[in-house]
């Protein structure tokens, strides 16, 4: 079991862009095992999205200094060559960014992403129907700018599930979704993790977090201030949001 173990060892990230450099994450060590849904909570600006991006090595080295180790399936991704890392990520990891609308090239129709980028072979109609998106023959003729923000987010989520990855990182996946559709996403993520896969979510949406998560990590002032079982976290007597 735990085939997709994500291990962070003393991860620190500092913003070194122009002006005064500042530390965003300080000595973060934790493990995200497969088969469970992990949710990272924290206030605006606490470094949640930076944490996800640093785990994926998506931070630009000229803007951010990253220290520590990140291992995915026993491989230290910061010691891989760019080509190896690209192939490694492509095969098993999908990332759903916060702003789905800007994740697409506005000049390419949605068909392009299914056929050329994600190379989806089967299950498209069922997934589109599940996430209440238009049928394939209609959707494939549309450009991303013709979709609403919620539809773009559902499209990106659908593509991520359809490409059958081992690990999905979700950054604020419900930000443009209404609550009924968030119910559908919650079920889908739980099903995904049950297949011994790995789901790591960053969100502000406490109700979603409470219903989807097995474990909760709270980021506060650049550190993980709490890491515990979700039921325990949400049901304790003195529970306060992000306490």
């Amino acid at each position, binding site marked *: 079991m735990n085939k997709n173990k994500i291990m962070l060892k003393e991860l620190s990230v500092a913003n070194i862009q122009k002006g005064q450099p500042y530390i965003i994450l300080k000595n973060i060590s934790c493990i995200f095992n497969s088969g469970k849904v992990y949710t990272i909570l924290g*206030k*605006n600006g606490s470094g949640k999205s930076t944490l996800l991006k640093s785990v994926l090595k998506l931070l630009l080295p000229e803007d951010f200094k990253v220290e520590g180790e990140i291992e995915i399936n026993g491989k230290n991704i910061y010691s891989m060559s760019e080509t190896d890392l690209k192939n490694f990520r492509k095969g098993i990891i999908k990332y759903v960014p916060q702003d789905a609308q800007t994740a697409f090239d506005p000049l390419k129709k949605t068909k392009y992403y299914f056929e050329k980028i994600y190379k989806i072979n089967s299950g498209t109609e069922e997934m589109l129907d599940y996430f*209440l998106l238009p049928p394939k023959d209609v959707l494939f003729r549309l450009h991303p700018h013709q979709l609403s923000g*919620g*539809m773009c987010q559902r499209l990106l989520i659908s593509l991520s599930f359809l490409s059958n990855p081992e690990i999905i990182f979700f950054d604020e996946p419900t930000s443009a*979704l209404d609550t*009924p559709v*968030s119910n559908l996403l919650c079920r889908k993520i739980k099903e995904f993790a049950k297949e011994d896969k790995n789901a790591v979510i960053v969100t*502000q949406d406490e*109700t979603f977090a409470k219903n989807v998560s097995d474990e909760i990590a709270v980021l506060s002032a650049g550190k993980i201030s709490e890491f515990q079982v979700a039921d325990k976290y949400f049901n304790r007597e003195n529970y306060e949001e992000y306490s």
Partner: protein
Amino acid sequence: MKNILEVENLYFSAATSNGQKEILKGIDLQVRESEVLGISGESGCGKTTLAKVLAGILKPVSGRISYNFSANNGSAKKVQMLFQNSDELLNPLLDVRKTLTLNGKPLNYDLCDLIGINQKLFSQKNSTLSGGERQKVAIARLLSVNPELLILDEPFSSQDPDSVKNLVELFKKINSNYKTALICISHQIKIFENFAHTISIMKNGKILETGNSAEILTSPAGKYTRFLLEAESYKLERRDFNDI
């Protein structure tokens, strides 16, 4: 109290690759003086389009919109709108002081105090502000022209729970101190508890149900409103969507 906004049989269409698509289909609504109206519904149901039509940004295909403000009667000048992405409201190169005095009037310190804009920020450029600070400056800029109706489009999305609570308190203060009527759009229906006086529920470009906040949240008449409230418990399955 008189109605400051009356909307009757409002239609709006947009051109798509498949021809014209009807987005708003016969909207009727009223907003009274100092009222807080919450509008909720699924994503893509036309909430933002309705807000833009009411703010005069989009022109309706047909229907009647009448404003009945104390000043500039009959015009939309007393309507201001906080867009979903408040970053886009501010010129990144201007400092906060300049941003808040673009109307040609002196800086309103009382307003800044009410909203919670620290005086230390006045000399800072908008581009250096945090997301929360930017949203506050954007709200102050909108209020600096004394609107009688403020339209808020998903002001709580991507905000942490503390910020949401603070924003709700701020909007309630604006509503009570300045008697500004508010139309607040949010896909989280529960957010309107203890905030909105009236709630309208939208689906597929139509308003399905309007009622006072307590009624809508506790004993809604409509099946779709009940469905939205049930969604808060995260028990819905895909098949529950089929007959909605």
